[in-house]
């Protein structure tokens, strides 16, 4: 397993204390899968537009952050709320065989897709077994 550690909780709508100060943040639900060339992370961040999205990759970490922006008429009061904050945050630990300089991210309808390529020398090669 390459994304070794997940600092968030698996619950999608739970609010937890963020790593920075006492800011609460939503933990986006994610699908993570790996093929021979790359690892793909798909994170749900409804309400986040491109300019309010922050994807940061470091040598050994991936941080996904976003701020929701919705049309809210002035003077709105809440009648019911499943979500109690407008921020999303989740981070993952990456390992050395991933090419963090070449990460690609795209956002569509609140769904973030991050593709992290593996270094060429780490790509899976099928080894053909021949029978004698």
């Amino acid at each position: 397993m390459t994304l070794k550690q997940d600092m968030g909780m698996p619950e999608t709508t739970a609010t937890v204390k963020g790593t920075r100060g006492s800011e609460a943040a939503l933990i986006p639900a994610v699908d993570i899968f790996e093929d021979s060339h790359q690892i793909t992370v798909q994170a749900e961040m409804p309400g986040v537009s491109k300019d309010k999205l922050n994807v940061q990759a470091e040598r050994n970490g991936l941080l996904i952050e976003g701020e929701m922006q919705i049309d809210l008429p002035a003077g709105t009061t809440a009648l019911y709320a499943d979500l109690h904050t407008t921020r999303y945050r989740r981070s993952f630990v990456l390992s050395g065989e991933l090419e963090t300089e070449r990460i690609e991210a795209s956002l569509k309808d609140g769904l973030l897709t991050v593709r992290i390529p593996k270094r060429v020398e780490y790509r899976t090669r099928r080894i053909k077994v021949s029978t004698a």
Partner: protein
Amino acid sequence: MFESLFNFDTDPFEQFRRLESEVGQLHGHSPWPAGIRAVQRGTFPPINVGATPERIDVYLFAAGLDSKSLDVSIQQNLLTISGSRRIDAEEKAEYYRRERFDGDFRRVITLPEDVDPERVDAKYRDGVLQITVQRREAARPRQITVS
């Protein structure tokens, strides 16, 4: 400005009720009676409902929906939203996490009684479905001038 839709801090009793019910949920029960159509915490998709004297806005947070799969209907003040989201698995990939909801969903919300079921708008943007229902004029507070 967003804060008003996402917390009830203006009402100290509401805060207390929330704390109570969150503690209750940890122990598998809530000390407060639940709405008959209320769903379990964490149900997909999460919903917020905001109100002004003129209108009610329902926000449904669901990324990557096909708006054609959505069915929104209103009967008097009962709003029903149903739809489906299918996530096609990558066949040649190995999954580490599959947290995204896959399947059919349905949520039913009781709106205040003064909503006008004839005047409803719905739009889907950035993964948020926003349904705006206008309220009837008669129910709005009116300022009466004293001469």
